[in-house]
């Protein structure tokens, strides 16, 4: 099944985040990577990543006329990583958060994909909430 460019990017982000595993050289295993659905069936878990898609805005500087015209958009994906430590854990909260932040940032950095069907999209990562 063919996906739109933006859906392909979203799936790629999810796919890459799902590869965060000890077996792949990371310090921890991601529990799951989810995109919210209408019924809100997800449940907060430690090391779960929620991928939120923001609005798309046209990027005039990368767009250009022609036949077909190239249309560029900026879309923000927000990755919300859950760190749910034990009630009995005495380790500093920030020190637990800091390590996954670095790894999520590294993993989710995407290059703009190549143009497809006269449309180009660019992904920017706006923020990382932990």
């Amino acid at each position, binding site marked *: 099944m063919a996906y739109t460019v933006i859906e392909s990017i979203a799936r790629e982000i999810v796919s890459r985040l799902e590869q965060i595993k000890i077996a792949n050289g990371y310090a921890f295993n991601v529990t799951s990577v989810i995109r919210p659905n209408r019924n*809100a069936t997800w449940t907060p878990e430690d090391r779960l990543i929620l991928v*939120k898609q923001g609005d798309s805005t046209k990027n005039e500087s990368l767009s250009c006329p022609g036949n077909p015209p190239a249309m560029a958009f900026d879309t923000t994906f927000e990755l919300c990583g859950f760190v749910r430590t034990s009630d009995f854990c005495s380790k500093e909260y920030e020190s637990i958060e800091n390590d996954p932040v670095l790894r999520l940032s590294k993993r989710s950095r995407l290059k703009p994909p190549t143009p497809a069907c006269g449309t180009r999209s660019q992904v920017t990562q706006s923020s990382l909430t932990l």
Partner: protein
Amino acid sequence: MPTRFEQHLRRTVVPNLVRQFGESAEYFPCNGESRAIEVLVIRDPLSIASEVGEVLVNALVVRVKNASDGITADELDTGGDKLLIALRSGGDTSLRSIVQLLSDANGFLRLLVQ
């Protein structure tokens, strides 16, 4: 130190409330074996998960006996404990995280389950 009123409530009212209005659920402590418990559930409509912006999340408020046949306050760990419970009364059960201890009074623990 609990008051006499609290002790009376814990001994007499709590078991009766659980017997009358309770439903079965399974408690999965993050460290330990799961066990069946009886809980009183308030099923709220979908709410916004404020930590992550405008993302919907299911929220249940669960009351459970603060005792060994419920969940004791010192074993509860909101960092990883889960409850196998139905989002809709009579519906399919699913494993949900216990995210917060809302209150602890009169023999009941009031828990936020999402």
